[in-house]
Every structure is written in structure tokens, then in C-alpha cells.
């Protein structure tokens, strides 16, 4: 079955961020498809390459990256939510004249149209809220 997942929760503040990752990993492990993960609201911080949790705690951005590499996932970070919260790719960093970018590899910034498309293309859409 083809799923899409919406993540609205910030890692380290809300358990939903971790639950969403576990749900994604489980559905992939059991043979389902994951069309897209759409990070919205504070969920955009999941795409931060600068997140540096202690060694003995889960690294949620790195976990998503590893899962994406194994399963060729589409990890979309809402561009409007991300830019105002300080999650930038190289293009946006240039547009706003910032010293660098911090979007982690494996994630991409895009618009809400990607969420509308995920709704249209998926058998199930599940939200992990904050």
C-alpha cells in the first residue's frame, strides 16, 4: 500500500517526530511503499544538517537520511515553513544572503504543492502532529 506521511513535530521537543520515523521504517520493512514524507511547521527542523544530539540519543535527522538512502525516499521540507525558521538550502541561503546553508543531504525544500500531490497519489496519508 502506498503511504505518505506529514510530520509537524520538532525533533527533541515532541515525541511525534520519533513516532513518525518508527512508523515509516516499519511500513518500509513490511513491504509497503512510502511515496513522500512532507515536513511542515516545526517539523522542518528535522531537515537540519546542524542538529548534533548527544551520542547516546537518537539522531532523528540522520535516521531519516539513512532510511532515505536505503529506500530512495522523497523527503520534502516545506519551503515557506523552513525559510522563516532558518532551514535553508544553498539556493535560499543565496537569496537571503546568508553565510551558509543547513539543509541536510537527502532532504529537499519544496512547496505545498508537493503535499497536495502526495494526497492525490497516496492510498493513505497520516499526520504526526505536535
Amino acid at each position, binding site marked *: 500500500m502506498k503511504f505518505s506521511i506529514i510530520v509537524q513535530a520538532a525533533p527533541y521537543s515532541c515525541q511525534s517526530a520519533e513516532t513518525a520515523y518508527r512508523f515509516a521504517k516499519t511500513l518500509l520493512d513490511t513491504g509497503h511503499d512510502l511515496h513522500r514524507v512532507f515536513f511542515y511547521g516545526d517539523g522542518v527542523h528535522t531537515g537540519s544538517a546542524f542538529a548534533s544530539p548527544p551520542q547516546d540519543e537518537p539522531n532523528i535527522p540522520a535516521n531519516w537520511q539513512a532510511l532515505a538512502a536505503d529506500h530512495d525516499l522523497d523527503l520534502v521540507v516545506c519551503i515557506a515553513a523552513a525559510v522563516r525558521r532558518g532551514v535553508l538550502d544553498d539556493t535560499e541561503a543565496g537569496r537571503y544572503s546568508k553565510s551558509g546553508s543547513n539543509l541536510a543531504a537527502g532532504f529537499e525544500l519544496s512547496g505545498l504543492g508537493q503535499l*497536495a*500531490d502526495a494526497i492525490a497519489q497516496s492510498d493513505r496519508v497520516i499526520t504526526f502532529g505536535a
Partner: protein
Amino acid sequence: MSDKKKVLIINRRAPYGRSNARDSLDVALTCGVFEMPISLLFADDGVFQLLGGHQAKDIGQKNLSANLAALPMYDIDQLFVCESSLNTHGLASDQLDHNPTVVDHNAIQQLIQSHDVVLTF
């Protein structure tokens, strides 16, 4: 888009205190651009999103009601408001903007069952 899924968006949060109301509206308008059939249900503290007379400049935000006024331009006209939530707050439907249809718990169950995708904010 391969498919015109019917989408129900449930708005349960008060406006301004958190960004849920605005985030929800952005999703609704985007789905409207893609011509997906959208219904909006306002319940719990979300009914305050429809109350008139907002002046949010002094808290550094834009009036939500102005954005809601854009819904008809995207052919989004299926607006519902929860009767028991209005009663809880002592609000009457004629105090609300955008002419929502008042619905009870049974009608809300039907809304959930009759849409293909349900999003909550």
C-alpha cells in the same frame, strides 16, 4: 493529479496562539489551486477562527479572517462549524464570518466518513 480526492480539513485550534490555523489555511488554498474538492470543519477552539473583527497588527500577525475571505476564489465553499463548540463558548452562528453550516456530532462523523483524506490542524 491522477485523482480528485475529497479532502476534509479539521481546524481545532484558536487563531494566533499557535500557527496551526494559518498552516491549515495554506494547505486548503494549495489544494484549491490543484482543484481538489475541499471541506473545512471548525471545531473546539477553532471556531474562533471564524469570529469577526480581528485586529492582529499589534501582535505582529496578519488578520486570519482576511485570508479566509480568499477561500471562495478557490471554489472552497464547504465550511462547517461544530454546534457543541459554539455552545461551549456561547457563540451564535450569526456572529461568524463566511457562513459556515452548523453541524452536530453525527454530521461530523458523516463528514469524516464521506471524505477520502482527513487532515487535522
